[in-house]
Every structure is written in C-alpha cells, then in structure tokens.
C-alpha cells in the first residue's frame, strides 16, 4: 500500500504537452485517418452493372434503385459497415476517407 502514487506523473504531465489531439491539427487540416477507414460512400456509376446485390445485403436500407437501373445511396441511414463495397462484383462502391458528413442540406447526403 502506498499513498499518492500518481503525484510524480501528475507533476510531470504539467511539463509536457497535453495528449489531446485537436480536430483541426492545423488551420484547415484535419486529423489523418488510416487507409482502411470507412467514411462516406464513393460510387462509380460507370462501373455499376445493376446487379442489386448491395441492396440485398445492406443492413439499414441505405440503397435504393434508380430509373436507369443504377443505385442511389442515402448516407443519413448508413452505418458504414462496408458490406456493399465487399459484395460489389465490379468494385463500383468504395468507402472513402471523408468523415465530415454533417450538413443542413438533405441532398448532400445522397450519393448517386
């Protein structure tokens, strides 16, 4: 049993910089994200063949069909599981590194 085990570390922390990472590391520069990060969906319309496998596996009903036999994504419902990107036979769907998806316009959250 000891008393005041943390005294040394608490005082030492005074001399060091805080470990908090700011959201903007520099003005206009975001925190970096790793390579496999799952962010906002990026959709390559040309590569899509309209197999609609993504709709069958999407757990939260993000994906709907469009008139031209392609798909559209409603990001506001997305849970970023990347199942659609995994199932896509032509790699038309990819999850990008964009994580700032808060917006006041609903249209911004629809990827076509």
């Amino acid at each position: 049993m000891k008393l005041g085990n943390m005294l040394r570390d608490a005082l030492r922390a005074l001399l060091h910089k805080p470990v908090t990472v700011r959201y903007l590391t520099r003005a206009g520069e975001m925190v970096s994200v790793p390579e496999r990060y799952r962010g906002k969906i990026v959709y390559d319309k040309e590569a899509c063949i309209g197999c609609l496998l993504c709709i069958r596996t999407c757990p939260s009903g993000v994906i709907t069909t469009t008139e031209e036999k392609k798909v559209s994504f409603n990001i506001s419902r997305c849970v970023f599981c990347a199942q659609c990107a995994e199932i896509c036979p032509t790699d038309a769907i990819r999850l990008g590194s964009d994580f700032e998806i808060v917006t006041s316009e609903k249209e911004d959250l629809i990827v076509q």
Partner: protein
Amino acid sequence: MTEKFDEVKEVKVDYTRLRVPLGPVHPALKEPISLTVTVRREEILDVVIRLGHVHRGIEALAETRNLIQTLYLVERICGICSHSHTTGFVQALEEIGEIELSDRSLHLRSLIFELERMQSHLFLIGIMAYEIGFDTLFMFTWYEREKILDLFEEITGNRIHHSMNTLGGVRWDLSPSFVEKVNCSLNKIEKSAKYIQEVFQDKTVEKRLCGVGVLDYDEARELCVVGPTARGSGVKVDIRKAYPYAAYSELKDDFSVVLRNTADAQARTQVRILELFESINLIRAILEKLPDGPIYKESVIKLMKKIPEGEATSLVEAPRGELLYFVRTNGKEGLWRLNVRTPTIPNVLGLKPMLIGSEIADIPVTVASIDPCMACANRITVVDQDKRETIVTDLKNLRNRGKKQ
C-alpha cells in the same frame, strides 16, 4: 369493547428510513437502470432493481431480416463487446450450415477478441476510477484504451463497430506491417497496464474498494454469475477454457484463468487488470502462431443461400462473461428466432446481495464493479392495454413463439 381496541394494531412509521431513488438517470450510472434504495443514515436496508428503460426490440427486428443484415444488427446490441456478439451469431450459423473455417481466420477472430477484451477491461477500470472520484486515473486509463481503438481503426477501419466477422471467415487481413504495429502498441500497453496495477494499490483506492460489494462463493454459484464477476468470487468459469471456440483450443496453454477469493469490488477490478496481461500474452501467441491461408471462403451471398433450416446455440466468453446465442434459421436466408443471453442478465442479479448492508457511498462502486451493460440486458415486457395486463415473457414462451411461425 375494550378488547377490540386492544387488537387494533399500531402502524409504525419509521422516520429514520429514507427511500433514495437511484436512476434511471444518475451520473454514477452509464446506462439506465433503476435502483430504489431504502437507507437508514448511510446504511442500505433494501434494494429494488428495475430494468427495462432501454429496450430496443432487436430480437424481434432480427426476425424480419436476412442473415447478413442480422449480422450487422447484432453487432449493435453492444458497443463495447460488438465482436463477441457477431462471433456468437456467426458461430451458430456456421454450425447450422456446417461451414469449415480456415485456421488464419479463426486466429484473427481470437486476436480481435482479445483486443476487444483489453479495450473493455480498460474501459471498466477507468469507470471504476471515476466512480471513486479518481479522475486522473480515469483519464490515464482511457488514454491507454485509445491506443487499442486506434489499432482497431487501422486493422478494420472502425473504432467500435469493427464488423470483423463475416459468414465463413473474417473480412480484413493482417499484413506483416500491422503485426509490427500491434506488437509495438502491446509493449506500450503492457507498460501502462503495470502502472495502472500499481496505482490501484494506492491507499485511498484500496480504502474505497476493499470489502465493498461482497458476493461470496456460494451466492455467486447460486446466482450463476459469469465472467470477471464470478472469477472475482473464486468461481472458475471461463468459456475459453471450458468450451473452446475460434482458435482457443490451440491457445489453451497460452493463458490462465485469473481467480480471486476476496469477492469484493477490489477482487473484480484486480481480475480485470490481471486479465489485461493474459490478453497481451494471448495476442503475442496468436501473432507468433498466425498460420497462412485465406481469410474467408466465398461470397457471403452464396454461403447465406446454403444455410438450411435448423437451430444451434453458441457460447462465447465476452469481456463481461458468458454470452449465449440461440439461432433458429428458416432455410430461406432468414431467421425464425434469435435469442441472446448477455452476461449482464445474471450479473445484475448479484447486485442485491452485494448492496444490502453496505453504504450509499458504495452503490456506484458496486454497480460499476459488475460492469453492467444495461442495453444488452433489457428484455421484453408485453403490455396488453385492453386487458390491463403486464406479461414479462420468458424463454419458454419465446421458444414457443418461434415454433409457431
């Protein structure tokens, strides 16, 4: 006439008693649970525990979806043990569909499992520190936890809901550069885990934790508590040893079951701290033994179609204890019935014997020491408004409901 007057009982009102409502919203509780505590001065005389503030109907929701969709749904039962839930579910499906997994995928499953256990234990250790008013230790512990979350983000792409599991394997592979990174982080975490262990021997900390919330061996056996709560009371239960799943049958010798006999909050916290070291050892063993091979079999759509009608149960050792999945498939890509028994359900029963006789100051420590996950533990209550009836459904009724469909 006088005799009759003598028979009238005097109603005694005990003004020394005070009924303190604790929760559903209370700063000591991370999730809603309602405890109505009767106290005399600081001593607790009686506790009434009520659950049911965050019921989400996940089991019923699962019956309306196909298997792949359910996989991501069960992941969201709990944020802290998301990998345990998917492993439990996927294992049951693989048993029904008789899908064989490659060794590499099993090892990767165990790897994420152990990382998740460390993350969860650090989380709880931080919460314990916060409950006893030791904010600095809380901050330091969660800073260590952040390192594991960063690892998760690098390996799987997400910090909490990593969705590592899929039917017939795992979704992301571990390249040699990741192995190095994991090893590097492990060394750092081991160092700070030793530091945390040291700080938890601080006198003020021990004064708050020792002898608080005692659940002795017999009571623990009787209430069937699971996980670190049981191991803190000296009950040797660990699904990883008893019914090995994933790669644990090969890793049997690389870890031991941590047991403590003092049965108080200190013992439960100690079990968790020591399990950090066990997990570090396990991860090192996994990284060393990691066999080559594919990480998943074939397209999940094809696998899903192959799964016949049938039922299976699977057991996993989640960070909080034994987690049971009962799955009954309908052969058409869907589910008849999904039943989850999360570790908090038995553990929360242990709260009453722990709390009675202790002080008000001990309530948050005791509640936190069983690591409750209320959202996991909430069960259905059917309220029939026309008949003005309240029925709490039990396992038997739910099973019958599954058979009827």
